[in-house]
């Protein structure tokens, strides 16, 4: 009776309205800066502080600015490499450490979290000294190594969480039925942890795309990333060209996410239909 009363209370119109308002406020807080950014990409003002009128000239300027596109593609290249490397290493690390027992396993797991707690500037200096001592030339490879160090804990944590929720007996059953570890990993484990792997990958990608501190330490004279370029513009003003570029990035990522969600939804529905059909057939 008490539960019923409580349930009715929380599903009342007042609570529903309050929750809609709360949702609207949260969405505004999240997306208002993005909307302002998009709006000001059409601002006819170099300093882009006060709205001076509508123009698309900065989009035109952007498409005729090979230097900025080069900077963007360098940033994208680094982000993709780090995402792939970090995801593979982090996933293998999470699976390996979750499924094995050996002396020092716990210490190794705790050490993986270090890049999360160490300030980036400390990590940057440490890596710079490491590369300097070993005579390793700074550049895109060192940036990739540094950023991979940074994103590894994120992938590790998300995949490990997914593994914790997975029933290990499914893997044991696969092995009992004759499959080797490699087959079990790719056909049983990976599909089960794939959502964790993908969210770790997305998190890594977005982290690296706007990474500044580590990159500043590890970049050479020939390498400039988009965050470095934008940060250098702060003294004289960030032009609407940057807004235009970030608008295009935002739209591209939104489209990619929407496509991914639609495809996932279609796959889920197809799977449900097939299960229903199998169930009916069994009956």
């Amino acid at each position: 009776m008490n539960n019923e009363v409580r349930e009715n209370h929380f599903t009342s119109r007042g609570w529903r309205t309050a929750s809609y308002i709360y949702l609207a406020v949260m969405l505004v807080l999240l997306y208002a800066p993005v909307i302002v950014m998009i709006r000001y990409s059409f601002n006819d003002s170099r300093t882009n502080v006060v709205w001076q009128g509508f123009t698309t000239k900065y989009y035109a300027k952007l498409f005729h600015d090979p230097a900025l596109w080069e900077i963007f593609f360098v940033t994208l290249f680094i982000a993709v490499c780090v995402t792939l490397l970090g995801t593979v290493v982090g996933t293998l690390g999470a699976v390996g450490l979750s499924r094995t027992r050996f002396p020092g396993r716990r210490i190794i797991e705790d050490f993986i979290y270090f890049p999360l707690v160490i300030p980036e500037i400390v990590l940057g200096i440490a890596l710079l000294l490491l590369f300097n001592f070993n005579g390793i030339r700074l550049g895109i490879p060192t940036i990739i190594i540094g950023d991979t160090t940074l994103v590894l804990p994120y992938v590790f944590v998300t995949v490990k969480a997914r593994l914790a929720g997975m029933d290990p007996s499914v893997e044991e059953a696969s092995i009992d039925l004759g499959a080797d570890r490699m087959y079990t990993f790719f056909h049983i484990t990976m599909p089960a942890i794939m959502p964790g792997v993908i969210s770790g990958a997305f998190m890594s990608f977005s982290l690296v795309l706007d990474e500044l501190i580590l990159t500043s330490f590890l970049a050479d004279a020939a390498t400039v990333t988009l965050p470095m370029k934008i940060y250098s513009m702060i003294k004289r003003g960030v032009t609407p060209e940057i807004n235009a570029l970030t608008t295009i990035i935002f739209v591209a990522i939104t489209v990619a996410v929407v496509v991914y969600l639609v495809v996932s939804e279609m796959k889920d529905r197809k799977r449900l239909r097939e299960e229903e059909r199998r169930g009916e057939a069994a009956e």
Partner: protein
Amino acid sequence: MKKKILSLIACAALAAGTLSGCGFNTEAGSYLSQEADANTLNVMIWDSDLSETTVQEFESQFNCKVNVTYLEDTNEMLQKLIAGGADYDVLDVESDYVKAFKDADLLAPLDYGVITNTDKLDPTFFTPGKGAIGDETFEYSIPLAGPFFTCVVYNKNTCPGEIDTLADLAKPEFKGEICSVKDSVSVYIGALIALGYPLDSTDDGQLQECQEMWQDIFPNVKSFVSSSAVSQLETGECSVAYCWDFNTICADSEKYWSEFDVAPNTGMGYTQDWCIAKTSRRQELANEFINFTMSPEQQANLINDFGGITTVKKELIEDKLPDNYYDNPCVTRYTEMWKNHQEFAVTDEQNDKMDDLYNELMSQ
């Protein structure tokens, strides 16, 4: 058993690969032991000091690649060069830092046999003997464009009082109207100018007077900004700003030409100078690059892209600039202010004292 042996061998191979990379190389600038690409020029600049068109045309004319790295802080450039790991050729150095770079033996002499466009420069901005402190003869540096000033910029319509010197900002009518840059050098050099003291002063008494002046101004300051006060001025949040943004505001829109002005007696003037890194292995190309940027065409590209003051003689460049370029108050004001400006050079001792005072000021 076989798999275990294979795993152990793989681990050993990985460990050996890791350890083989370890080793000391105490040679300063170990990166530079690698063969430099003769057709690649590495330029380190502040944003808006080099037109992209200039880069493309230089690359095309000299059949080379120009890599541009952007600065956020002069000390960052200094540290990168001192650490020896940088492979930069052309540097964009603030004139008040030229002495520090030269004393640290980081600069190579310019080759005026290659840099021949100096005959096109206005004597107001290029007169041998009147260069940056420590390089008065322009042996190691040359202005890449006209001067900047850190000074009081105010909105003529909303500024609540008269401003003759920086000390006037302490008047009660300016309460809540002021925005100021956070840079300790700008803050205290500005105060030394206002009090009539030498700009290289390290005298504790004089610096303490500067501190007291800023302590009087402090209650009137609405915000300190680390980079730009353009937002505060253009939105009207502040009617007065001690900043380096008059050039940026005037370049943003012509409507601001009648709206904003500077208090000339508050100005701390400097130029951005081209220098060549001593460790550069492409000094000839670096000199060609500097000469290229000094031409009227390339100066016009810079001004048309980012605004500012050109160092090129008016008669050689005016047809390449907008018709109303010389009506820009920033151009006229800065050119006049430059004739009476005082040079200064940042020193470690003065910098340290100013930083201490600044921290004390901010903690109140």
